[in-house]
């Protein structure tokens, strides 16, 4: 038996598994099967949707507005859902990013008193674990209070509808929040301590250090956290179904152009797929496939963006 020199990786990929006991070889085969079938499942899903999507996706679907017709040749496309997805994603991220940035900075850079920091940490953990459907009906409960009437449609007699882009985006921001906080904190922890100390040694205050030294350093992790959150928001259905009012077309309330849309109802690609699937009222599988394909492309695109941003982060943290 030859001694294994410490410089050689003990788990040398060339190490032969042929001499292993049968049980171990079977287990190794299971590993390969598990790994390869994970790949196979993913490719089957994407491939099948791509096949169906290309088959049914008509450019006119992307540019025409949906309408509730039983005759599928007249029920239009999904321009409004696409606009809705974009609006909701942007609005949700706009709410989430400042909140997450402040929380992550406070937790990592200050974090006093200790008990409060721990409580905030577990609060974020709790929000991360809360099902989006629960967040959705919690949001409905909150935004139906009269105080929040300005965010949505207020009926005669003072009852508040509570469903609008504003309220949906507010709840969507909670889905993105834990991802953003996690990613920003990782970025902050990757900044070496001597960088901060160099700044303090130059007489900078902590606040100035955060603004001038840390913020530029964590820009990539804010970016990847944001994109991750956007993917989660774009893919969520439960909040849209409950908090966006369930109209296929964008329906504004009020006179100010953009504000009225944001106070109004609409749909997103996810709710469009849901409604047009056999489980919903529309039941137009072809259109559901086409919309699901577009949705999947958006999500894969955001996913690729995260991977690229993450690659940018790693050399920065190795500094």
């Amino acid at each position, binding site marked *: 038996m030859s001694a294994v020199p*410490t410089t050689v990786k*003990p*788990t040398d990929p060339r190490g032969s*598994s042929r001499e292993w006991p049968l049980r171990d070889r079977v*287990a190794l085969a*299971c*590993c390969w099967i*598990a*790994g390869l079938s*994970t*790949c196979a499942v993913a490719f089957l*899903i*994407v491939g*099948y*949707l791509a096949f169906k999507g290309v088959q049914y996706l008509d450019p006119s679907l992307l540019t025409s507005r949906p309408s509730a017709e039983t005759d599928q040749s007249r029920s239009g496309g999904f321009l409004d859902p696409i606009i809705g997805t974009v609006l909701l994603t942007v609005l949700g991220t706009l709410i989430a990013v400042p909140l997450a940035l*402040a929380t992550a*900075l*406070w*937790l990592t850079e*200050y*974090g006093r008193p*200790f008990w409060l*920091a721990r409580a*905030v940490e*577990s*609060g974020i*953990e*709790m929000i991360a*674990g*809360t099902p989006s*459907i*629960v967040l959705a*009906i*919690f949001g409905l*409960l*909150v935004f139906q209070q009269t105080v929040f009437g300005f965010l949505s449609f207020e009926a005669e007699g003072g009852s508040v509808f509570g469903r609008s882009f504003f309220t949906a985006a507010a709840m969507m921001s909670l889905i993105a*929040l834990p991802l953003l906080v*996690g990613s920003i*904190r990782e970025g902050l*922890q990757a900044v070496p301590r001597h960088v901060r*100390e160099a700044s*303090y040694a130059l*007489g*900078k*205050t*902590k606040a*100035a250090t955060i603004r001038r030294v840390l913020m530029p350093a964590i820009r990539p992790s804010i970016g990847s956290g944001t994109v991750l959150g956007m993917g989660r928001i774009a*893919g969520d259905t*439960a909040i849209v179904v409950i908090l966006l009012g369930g109209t296929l077309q964008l329906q504004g309330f009020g006179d100010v152009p953009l504000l009225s849309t944001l106070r109004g109802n609409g749909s997103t690609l*996810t709710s469009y*797929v*849901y409604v047009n699937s*056999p*489980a919903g009222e529309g039941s137009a599988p072809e259109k*559901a496939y086409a919309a699901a394909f577009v*949705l*999947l492309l958006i*999500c*894969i695109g955001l*996913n690729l963006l995260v991977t690229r941003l993450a690659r940018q982060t790693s050399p920065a943290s190795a500094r």
Partner: protein
Amino acid sequence: MAALTHPIRSALRGARQGAAGDRRVELALGAVASTVLLLCAGMVVFVVLKAWPSFEANGLGWFASASTDEQLGEIFKSPSNPDQYVYEFGAWALIWGTLLTSGLAVVIGVVFAVFTAVFIVEFAPSKVNRVLVPTVRLLAAVPSVVYGLIGILVLVPLAAEVLVTTERKESVAYFVQLTGACWLVAAVILSIMIVPIMISITVDALRAVPRSWTEGAAALGVNRWRVITTISVRAARPAIIAGMILASARALGEAIMLSMVAGSAAWAPNPLDGFTFFLEPVRPLASTVVESAEGLSVEPFGQTIYAIAAVLLVSSAFLSWAGWFAKRSMRRYGIEPGGATQ
């Protein structure tokens, strides 16, 4: 992470200028961070308060077995006079549906996740890993409605054709209809949805196992498979448990996919039915909420639905804290499994 104290920093603290402005920044950031706590407290208070009448009227019977769908209908139709509100409700069928779908999904998922994680960390050639790792991330990024669509348009018809035979249909025809939409299909799709969480937590933990431990075992002549199972997987056990817990929190809260695929009937499948058991429809708690969205403003009905949401909220909060603690217990070995939030 706690405030990092360091001799140099504390020595400098007095010398720094603008300490008052600094303090203001700290307070402002702290205030924003604390709103997260307010939100959590608000969520629990609002939802439980709204749900209370339903719990109060039913007591522990809320969790009991009953003809749930008829009861929901009665609650929906109850008179508008608050004194005559109907609250009678037993959610066992919904709870059982949730337990079945999440339970089977986690069991399937954990086997796959551990093998795949071992494969990624130990055995996969780097070329395979270059495909496999992004693929796992992709599976996590696919929206649940897309999984639901594939389920309802591909797998449910397949199950109806292959698994649901006429005898099976007739054997339970008196109680429930077998359409192919069943909890088996739902659990299989759910396991695909939760596997990425478990894989990423397990991979992080396996990578965090100190090299010296595995090298020590390898130096004793143990083969690679035995090294990774007896040393790495064993050390990563808390993380695998954490992954299972966090994945079941995700499975518990999945509403859209399950409402599309699981058959949408408040029916508690009976294990005594043999294989037909797997083909019976269910409607988990979360799907019930999403499907009842229209009736939320009808008073006693809304309260009942909020009661379901309260059960989901409390159980998912417990699960996520349990997962957090399970992950922390790896610190006992001085290992820091990364990835604070999944």
